[in-house]
């Protein structure tokens, strides 16, 4: 019998500091056993429990694409009160840690085939959408989908994640990237403004389109009305919920909202679903 609580050993191959505040790091992990790597099959939007023995576990969205071979990536924000994330940020390349998962449901990419895709994201919630963009832009996948537009905002230019990738995406035709910061600095010549406002300015067409939205609760709250105004039906507004989690497998009770467990029945929900769950109302 497999033990669902036992993390699988991984080696940290690479650590990338993502932002000026140095509290966002991307960890590239490699499974130490080949059979674990083969068994860890995931989809865009899923998460895993990252385990540091002695500190505990944290649920973190998977930032790499399912088509990335030989590694998985997670971008982790360190909070001063975050026991696990603080210890995790102190680990060095070559260290061993643990992963269990993948957990949760995924973005409904099969359902979105042939459609226009709009991605709206703010802050470090961008990680699972980075996974999604990498996947959608992969040469084996891009032709399955129609136009792709991504709006991504951060507090300041230095807080933008995956800067090299953003530049590469901006330079290519497969995706229309709209990058915004709440407030620019001297070197910033790009857009300024909060994500919901920029969304209204860009006004992506809702026709034959799905929108994936991920961000802090306050951004989600102010992003839903403009999306509805643009004509996106609530069933085609796909978002992701966050809750404190322990088990990741729908037992420990922590992430229960209504009759759902965010870890097992989510984290991906449609806005139509969220409107039916009083405790999850945005």
């Amino acid at each position, binding site marked *: 019998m497999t033990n669902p*609580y036992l993390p699988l050993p991984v080696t940290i191959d690479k650590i990338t500091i993502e932002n000026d505040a140095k509290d966002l790091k991307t960890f590239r992990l490699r499974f130490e056993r080949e059979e674990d790597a083969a068994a860890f099959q995931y989809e865009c939007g899923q998460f895993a429990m990252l385990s540091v023995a002695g500190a505990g576990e944290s649920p973190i969205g998977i930032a790499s694409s399912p088509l990335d071979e030989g590694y998985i990536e997670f971008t982790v924000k360190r909070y001063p009160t975050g026991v696990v994330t603080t210890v995790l940020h102190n680990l060095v390349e070559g260290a061993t840690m643990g992963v269990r998962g993948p957990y949760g449901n995924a973005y409904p990419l099969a359902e979105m085939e042939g459609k226009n895709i709009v991605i709206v994201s703010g802050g470090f919630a961008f990680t699972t959408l980075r996974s999604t963009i990498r996947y959608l832009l992969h040469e084996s996948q891009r032709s399955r989908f129609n136009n792709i537009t991504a709006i991504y905002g951060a507090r300041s230019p230095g807080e933008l994640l995956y800067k090299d990738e953003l530049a590469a995406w901006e330079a290519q035709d497969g995706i229309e990237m709209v990058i915004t910061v709440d407030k620019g600095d001297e070197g910033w010549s790009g857009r300024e403004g909060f994500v919901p406002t920029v969304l209204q300015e860009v006004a992506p067409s809702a026709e034959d389109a799905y929108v994936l939205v991920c961000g802090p609760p306050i951004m989600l709250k102010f992003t839903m009305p403009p999306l509805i105004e643009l004509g996106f039906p609530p069933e085609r507004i796909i978002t992701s919920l966050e809750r404190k989690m322990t088990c990741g497998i729908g037992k420990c009770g922590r992430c229960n909202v209504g009759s759902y467990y965010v870890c097992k029945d989510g984290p991906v929900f449609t806005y139509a679903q969220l409107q039916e769950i009083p405790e999850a109302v945005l």
Partner: protein
Amino acid sequence: MKRGKIDKTDLRKLLAAASEKARCAGPVADRVGVKLEELTADSVLALDYDNFRLSPKLWFFPRSEVIASGSNGTLEATPLPEEATVLFGLRPCDAASLELLDKIFLDEAYLDPYYKARRENTTIITLACNDPDPACFCTSVGGGPGASSGADVVAFDLGSELLFEAVTEKGEAFLAEHDGLLTAPSNADDTAKEKLIADAEAKLQPVTIDGVADKLAGLFDAPVWETIGERCVGCGTCTYLCPTCHCFGLYDEEADGNVKRIRAQDACMFPLFTLEASGHNPRSTQGARARQRVMHKFSYTVSNVGETFCVGCGRCVSHCPVNIDIREILEEVGA
């Protein structure tokens, strides 16, 4: 199914025989009540009790247990418990609670291996209730003082004798193994049993919970929750004593480089239960937490697994330090 009677003076003999193959636990008095305790040669059985102060879920889902341990960054899973166990004297409500916990921990998508091993290794002999406590309301939530759900064998207290009735194959095997100590029950014994159960049922005060699940769905924002929240001290006693509450946390402890990953019972009554590292707490008031417990038991689990997660044992009613009574809440929301 197999049946048989035993004189109460021989019960100790039966359990001693069972102890040769399995650890046996039964009702033993302590300074404040009766608890379900592993029996030794010196144990004195206490057969006159309302119920154990603590729920027997502890035998399957302990207060805390080390599920993995290790050093140098890697963890090895704790081997599964293999010890055969006989639990004697569970009340029917508590036995029924195990069938509810099975819906969570034996869910096929993610089996909990520790819970599963303990369930498989354990034989459960319930003792039907002749004299329910005033806080009991099992018949209002689908149970009864002589109900057999979750039991392998049900015992009925006929006075100087116990009448055993096997419910499962496991129970059948248990009675067959101890056949030498049993005598055949008579028709008079059955009549006596029926009367005891009927009398016990008559002592219970029914609570109206019909339609509560549907009504709760529309009462998420009702003022009743904050009213309860103002009284609730958030001690979590109701959840720890509840035989069906199953929330838990996983914690690491480290000493001298050795790490233990511990699974420990936790409670939705505590603000830390849902507090995120960012500082955001989706359940920031005691009223919201009290609502969660009632909603989870009487609405969410009904939607998810088709069961009300309450067996009417009355522990939360008897032990709440501020006299919050789940029966009153149910009657208020059901009205």
